[in-house]
């Protein structure tokens, strides 16, 4: 048994040498292998996400910047959530499965009086709900086998953004066209999760025993979404409501 365990460890070390070499810490207190009680089944991951969000609407136009002209140069903010189903556990690698994310962001500003640069008292608002259906690979072997509290991960899949433009009177209609629509695109993300259980190992164990939450993470992600930039799925004109940028959040595996 001891030999097998050593071989496993060597194999993992060889596979992930660069990461493990820089992250050797004594973490025996929180490692799964050192748990006194059996771990509860782990099937899902849930993320609460937030970060800046500035849609790439102006990239559609040459020399014109309708988004910046209306809403200015601020970054904006988005809030979202994601639920992953960890269908497959790949030995010595991590979990793999589909995930669905939903987020919300909106920008508002005083609309200008037509034909002038004078602001009116009426607000114009752009609301975007970016969603994605992605495959998620979370490489948690570092944590599970080596005690390194880091879980790198990647996501790739299909994105959909629902957007609408409204004023005080509701969704606007211009030239008989309703000011809302959908934008399809690709969604990619790369990130790393910091395993928080080592901060309070006993609490983490109790959280698992009582609530079934196996792991808690703080994560940082770089996200790229080209919603509306591609006509591969839909040929209808689409607003480029995608963005790229960092996302910060909290994740639970249960």
């Amino acid at each position: 048994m001891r030999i097998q365990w050593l071989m496993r460890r060597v194999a993992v070390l060889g596979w992930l040498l660069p990461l493990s070499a820089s992250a050797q810490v004594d973490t025996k207190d929180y490692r799964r292998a050192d748990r006194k009680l059996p771990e509860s089944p782990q099937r899902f991951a849930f993320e609460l996400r937030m970060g800046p969000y500035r849609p790439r609407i102006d990239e559609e136009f040459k020399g014109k910047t309708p988004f910046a002209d209306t809403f200015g140069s601020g970054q904006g903010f988005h809030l979202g959530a994601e639920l992953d189903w960890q269908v497959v556990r790949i030995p010595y690698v991590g979990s793999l499965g589909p995930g669905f994310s939903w987020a919300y962001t909106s920008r508002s500003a005083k609309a200008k009086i037509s034909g002038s640069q004078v602001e009116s008292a009426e607000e114009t608002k752009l609301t975007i709900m970016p969603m994605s259906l992605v495959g998620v690979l979370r490489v948690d072997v570092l944590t599970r086998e080596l005690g390194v509290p880091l879980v790198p991960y990647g996501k790739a899949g299909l994105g959909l953004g629902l957007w609408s433009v409204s004023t005080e009177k509701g969704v606007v209609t211009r030239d008989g066209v309703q000011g809302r629509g959908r934008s399809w695109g690709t969604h990619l993300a790369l990130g790393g999760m910091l395993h928080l259980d080592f901060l309070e190992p006993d609490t983490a164990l109790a959280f698992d025993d009582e609530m079934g939450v196996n792991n808690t993470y703080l994560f940082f992600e770089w996200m790229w979404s080209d919603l509306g930039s591609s006509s591969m799925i839909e040929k209808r004109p689409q607003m480029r409501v995608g963005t790229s940028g960092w996302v910060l959040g909290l994740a639970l595996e249960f």
Partner: protein
Amino acid sequence: MPRWSTCLAAVVAAHLLAPGEVRAQSIELNPANVRRSNGFRDPSLNPTWISRADCLGDDKFIFPLVLNGFPVGYSLQVWVGESGAQCEDINNRTGNTVKCWKVVDFTPTSTNTPEIIIPVRDIIARKIGSTISTGSESDCENSSFSLNDTPQPLDLYFLPIQGNTTGTGKIYSTKVDLLGPAAPTGVKIGIGENLLVLEWNQVSSGDITGYQFFCDPPPGSSSTGEIRSTDDPSPFEEDCVEEGRGGASGSTGKGNGGDTSGLSDGSGEAGQAGQGGQGGDEGEGEQGGEVGSGGAGFGGSGGSGVSSGDGRTNCAPAQGSSCPSVNLIGGKILKNPEKYLCGSASGLSATKGSVSNLTNFQRYTVAIAAVDGVGNVGPLSPLVCETPQPIDDFYKVYRDAGGRAGGGYCQVNLTELPRGGSLPLLGVLASLGALALRSRWRCR
């Protein structure tokens, strides 16, 4: 006759003939069965209370009673007293310390289930004394209850009474509130497309449930303000002619309009309220504020000193007022608020609202009034006015730049099948689905 039977007869006779206490009688009154002749208003507006509209509409309480063993020779009287008045005590109904007033004196005859109808005006009239208090429309404005904008608790005592003898009765409690909340201050108005945006300072006192907006002309009307109908010589509770207080239109203030930087930076200063002028003048005011003259943004409200002075024969707007309106006057209570109602905002803490369905390039005069817990509309705020204009919302700017997206979430126009770059993504998802199914199959 045996002694016991003599004793029994004496007890029975005493019981039957005793004048001081009404025997085994009861008045049944179920508050849930009480009706109003004009119907109940919205449950959120204390429908069992008495409002100014109830009084002006000559509303009546209808009390279905059930009388059991009501003694012969007694009358059923209804007395009203402020909370804790204890009208069952004769000293509170007559004498020097009288606190209660009578609104019904009824002698039950053939029915044990009478319906007692009490006009709310009789309750409000508050004519203390032995005669029945009867009210009229003027009591809606001039009773002692018209001076306080907080609800006053009242108890209605249904009592069997014969001479100085009072039987056990029933009490029905209600409240009366005839005065709406004070007018909002700090009213500002801003331009929108077919819309005007209003902001005001929260009214801190009173039982406010919301605010109502009044427009002249009302939305959908192309009139320019001179829309008073002949059957409505004055749209206000108090006719301007009867106004005894001096007060020419006065200077309606500087009212610097928003500058070109717009709403957030260019809020115009509210105009100073007009100062009362010398009585007897025609109420000519000085030059009114040029509200919003700098372009858009919130203009300051015009002064409220447009109320009439002595000698005015009607409520014609004062000369020079920046927001002329014969139908809306700051500080006045509208008689028929529904006629000019053009919007509302609910909640005590509301400080912003909008009026929609307006016509662009039509100038509107607008005022705000607070509404209390029974629907009483308070006096109008100082008038503000502005002209709706088309705006460039983001979608218009986007389309003007050449953007063509839009049309709704559910417009079906998918191309055949995803191709090119999306295929790998869909492949990943399909593989994950297959893995999931395989995993579940293995679990079985």
